[in-house]
């Protein structure tokens, strides 16, 4: 029976080649439609695979999206497409390359490490877990991050961010280092930093110009108490990225925190 693979959105609509080698399941995603790649990943996890390696990834979306599993590791070689680890609950994803928009979107738990840059709306509505980006990130990163009970999301970006970093932030910890950047002449963050923020905390290595911050945000020098929170996170980040912890902490940090949990409490009047 002859069979010609259908082409969907530029990818082949076929099951990817899978190789099992000891405890490692390698999925060759090169040119394969995202749906088939992700089906294979989910099936492998439900069959008990704990270490998956995706090779040849080039823009496939939704890798790790909606996967609820603990003790599972997914290595991504190439460029991860949009919504990497969206709604993810547990796994660890490490991307050896860049990631596109929507990394960690509405994520619950797990870890995403990107050894490169990432795009817009990173960590949107993230409720828990860790996202570590080596380089620069796009617009509206950390938007509406929340925290709930023992879930406290952590986002660390080694490079610089565009506008609206931490917008509407309601919980969690977002850290901006400004170090591994392609844009040395740019400020560490764009404008409207923390606009509408009503919970959580943003730490910036170095200082920020007050005019770049949302009016809901207070700007403080990081205290010893802040550093007690930051140091373990930064150690973990440095070990994930192979960066020098002493260099990262060689500059003081600035803490941005909201004035109120109810920024719009007085805006409305009942009729």
């Amino acid at each position, binding site marked *: 029976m002859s069979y010609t693979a259908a082409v969907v959105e530029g990818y082949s609509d076929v099951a990817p080649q899978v190789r099992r080698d000891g405890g490692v399941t390698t999925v060759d995603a090169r040119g394969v439609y995202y749906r088939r790649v992700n089906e294979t990943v989910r099936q492998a996890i439900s069959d008990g695979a704990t270490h998956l390696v995706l090779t040849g990834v080039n823009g496939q979306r939704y890798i790790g999206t*909606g996967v*609820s599993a603990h003790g599972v590791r997914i290595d991504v070689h190439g460029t991860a497409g949009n919504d990497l680890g969206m709604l993810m609950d547990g796994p660890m994803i490490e991307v050896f390359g860049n990631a596109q928009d929507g990394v960690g979107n*509405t994520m619950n738990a797990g870890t995403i490490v990107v050894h490169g840059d990432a795009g817009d709306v990173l960590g949107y509505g993230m409720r828990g877990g860790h996202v570590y980006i080596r380089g620069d990130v796009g617009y509206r990163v950390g938007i509406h991050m929340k925290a709930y009970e023992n879930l406290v999301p952590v986002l660390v970006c080694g490079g610089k961010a565009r506008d609206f970093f931490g917008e*509407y932030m309601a919980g969690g910890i977002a850290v901006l280092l400004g170090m591994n950047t392609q844009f040395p002449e740019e400020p560490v963050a764009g404008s409207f930093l923390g606009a509408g923020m009503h919970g959580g905390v943003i730490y910036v290595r170095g200082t920020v110009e007050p005019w770049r911050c949302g009016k809901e945000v207070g700007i403080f020098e990081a205290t010893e108490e802040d550093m007690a929170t930051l140091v373990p996170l930064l150690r973990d980040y440095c070990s994930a990225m192979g960066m020098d912890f002493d260099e990262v902490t060689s500059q003081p940090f600035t803490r941005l925190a909201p004035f109120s949990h109810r920024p719009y409490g007085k805006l409305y009047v009942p*009729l």
Partner: protein
Amino acid sequence: MPGTYIQPEFRVKIDYDKCHKCGRCVQQCGWGVYSFNERPIPDDSKCRACHRCVTFCPAHCITIEKNALAYKDNDNWTVDARKAIWRQAETGGVLLTSMGNPRPYPRIFDHLLLDACQVTNPSIDPLREPMELRTYLGRKPDAVSVEADGAGGYRLAPNGGMTANIQLDAPIIFSPMSYGSVSLNVHKSLAMAAQRLGTLMNTGEGGLHADLYPYQDRVIVQVASGRFGVDPEYLGRGAAIEIKIGQGAKPGIGGHLPGEKIDKEVSSTRMIPQGTDAISPAPHHDIYSIEDLRQLIYALKEASGYKPVGVKIAAVHNVAAIASGIVRAGADYIYLDGFRGGTGAAPQVIRDHIGIPIEVAIAVVDQRLRDEGIRNHASIVAAGSIRSSADAAKAIALGADVVAIGSAALMALGCHLCQSCHTGCCSWGLTTQKPELTRRLDPEWGAERLVNLVSAWSHEIQEILGALGVNAIESLRGSRERLRSVGLDAQMNAVLGVKPVGM
């Protein structure tokens, strides 16, 4: 200076000759109208005309009247306009209100009349003949493949092209109202009724409380811009997933559930801290285009094992083109909410002045999807003040598959439309989280009332279908030939695709 220029809207009259002095009115009022000093003494300024005290007064001695206070006549500067200015001059705030747009814009449903059979074709008696209301919510394929069933017939082939649809025993579902805006007992009433009726309730954007898990096969779980309570488990439990883009009462704006309404239970269902404002951003910040919407639709499908995903939008000026984009983005149904749709809280200026009527939205969306040959790709759910079975039938004749009811459902549970949901003091225990008020609604009783309402409307729709001489709701869907308009201009008739009476 006086505290306010605004005089009470109502007068609470008590016939003290009949009054038992039992104090029940004091206890029943959620707004604290009554104090008690040997007999109940009302403060008119707090009255919302919700009739809770009137209903529960054992002596039937309370009545509520409009304050007859005369204002100098002025058709331009209405009394409401004057009061709004005084209120804003006092406070500097955005005026907040609730329920649907009450202004006297034309009500198109009231200008549409249905047909009936006389002589030349027989009408059908639905009491004694089959009359099908069953409706399937979801995408219908362009074609299916079949295989022989081995008994001389055919059946749908495996992977024959059919995607997941949800069977509804009546073309009426409950519209999204979040736990937080309404009480948990309201959610339970809706869920129990949906299960008994074979229809659906909708979580709104406030998450799914664990008490509703037994009814999850009859629950649409909503994903709004705040992503409250949205995790893989939530998506896994729902029968369908709905992306909320907009709401008829407040198109284009976000929402704030005030911190004081976020108690322990609401907090755990939304998965946010107690006492913090629950802020829903105006847009989903991962959706700035139809392509982005497609991305979220398929993200939710990927995360849920390819459940039906619908998209709810407010009916706005360009709704037909937007709907076409939504259907092409892969939505299994599109939920259109007209400008009279209800809300638990919205700025009055938005509620009263933005959007278009649902009747127009249904007609233009249905027509556009037909013209483009994609009408079967998505069901149309229509909402935004469906007041009766007649409105439902007219909506379906204009092109909807299903109607959704929110305000009507709340009225079944006791709502008297006092438009004060945003105060959180609902005397009927519906739009409040105060335990002494929420316990007033027994979910079992509430479910029974909702089942009664939808059953009654279903019977009435069957009667309408019988009169039209058709035996299935499918035969009415988009059958605008069975509608005529009265009192609408030619341009509006053309927009609706409806002929005037007499033609």
